[in-house]
């Protein structure tokens, strides 16, 4: 106790402590590439796990991967950017439902593709800053008949980099769904739009 008060009485130490408080938090958060790569490595570890290979373990495997993707992706941001200017025409309940449905739709759509992973090498090459607080983390999947470039667009919020768009061979997920939903929203109000998504989800 006496030691501590003694320390704090020292002017130099007090000033140095202030400097520590000023260090930007991003310095310790890791770069965008490191963050995305770490998450991808976690998913790959689960995919390569021999104990999860049998069909009976499929549900457990999916659940574990989902817990990673939930931290990796910012589904709210993804949803907002997909609906773009239509976002405001949804009331908060509808917005929340859309986020939920959209997330489930994407999980459903890509679960099979991810689970079909058969040992391809994934290389993270570089990160390119986009305007604003966003960065594009570039990677490629090395398949037998060519490479597939997959870019993750991430945004820095609440001290962590999270993915808000995935661009595969130049095709942005957000852009693609945005154009689909725009077509529907031209003809239908938010409630029947949500019903279309619900129905699609049921049919899947």
């Amino acid at each position: 106790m006496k030691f501590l008060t003694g320390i704090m009485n020292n002017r130099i130490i007090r000033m140095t402590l202030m400097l520590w408080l000023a260090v930007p938090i991003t310095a310790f958060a890791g770069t965008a590439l490191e963050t995305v790569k770490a998450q991808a490595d976690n998913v790959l570890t689960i995919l390569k796990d021999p104990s999860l290979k049998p069909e009976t373990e499929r549900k457990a495997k999916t659940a574990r991967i989902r817990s990673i993707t939930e931290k990796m992706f910012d589904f709210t941001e993804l949803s907002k950017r997909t609906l773009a200017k239509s976002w405001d025409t949804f009331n908060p309940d509808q917005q929340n439902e859309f986020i939920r449905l959209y997330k489930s739709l994407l999980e459903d759509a890509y679960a099979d593709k991810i689970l079909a992973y058969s040992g391809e090498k994934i290389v993270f090459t570089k990160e390119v800053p986009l305007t604003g607080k966003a960065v594009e983390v570039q990677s490629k999947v090395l398949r037998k008949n060519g490479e597939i470039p997959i870019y993750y667009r991430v945004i820095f919020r609440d001290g962590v980099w999270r993915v808000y768009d995935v661009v595969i061979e130049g095709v942005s997920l957000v852009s693609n769904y945005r154009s689909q939903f725009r077509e529907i929203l031209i003809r239908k109000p938010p409630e029947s739009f949500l019903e279309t998504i619900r129905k699609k989800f049921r049919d899947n």
Partner: protein
Amino acid sequence: MKFRQIFTTGFLATTAFAYCLASLPAVALFAATDGVDSFVPETHTTSKTSSDIKEESATQPSQYEDISEDAKDVKPSDIDNGSDENDNDDEGTNIADPLSPLNKVMFNMNDKLYFWLLKPAAKGYAYVLPEFVRVGFSNTYDNLKSPARVINNLLQLRLAAAGNEFIRFLINSTCGIGGLEDIAKDVLEIKKQEADFGQTLGHYGIGHGIYIVWPVLGPSSLRETVGFVGDRLMYPLTYISESDLPIEASIGIAAHEKVNDTSFRIGDYESFKKAVVDPYTAMRDSFVQYRKNKVEQSYIDKNKHDFK
């Protein structure tokens, strides 16, 4: 007394060191918020050529989407929308589709053709022929398209890419026995330098015109159709006379190529349909984005060792 002096010095030193470490990402972040041009990680040779400058200006369109989107992050409101800004960020992925009703009919027809004809054929084909054989065919057909890639790379003034593709053609045709093996890639690590005539037209600023869905051939546009015809004129088999290669054989070869190609991709179309809510619009949008990306890449000419 003495301990406190040591502690203070140590504390100061650690702080200074931490600041040195911390300043690096902070500088990077500062440069990032300052604008794209000031911080492009080097992937090219050190000397700046006109193609480098073109690339940097070409990256602007692709980030145009994000400019308008991320500009909203700066606004006090948390909602990510903004009236007219969103109309702009789709400019790059919009295409005129006046033939939409007709295109939809074609789209549905192609859908049926896939499930009723192409997929069963490809499945049976894949069952009968082992993968290395199908890869051999794929390589051979690819090699035949090499002249078109060389010419298009030249037209796009991508000299390094043209040169590399020319070397690939020579090596694969000879050592690779008529293109069966992609020796150039496997041994010399010279990858395929993709280029097509539709991309060349886009490189010089020609727009898509309108969206067209052809039966069998699938999504296309006015520009891409001209591109397809142009590429066909650069295809060696086009120049074999009618007596040596009758039209039925030509069509048979094209069909074989399509089935062979599909045999590697069975399931892709199905998962596409499962993932999307509106397949027609999704395919149209993917097509436009994909071709736009190809045109953006046409401004980049990397040297042999750096090709990605």
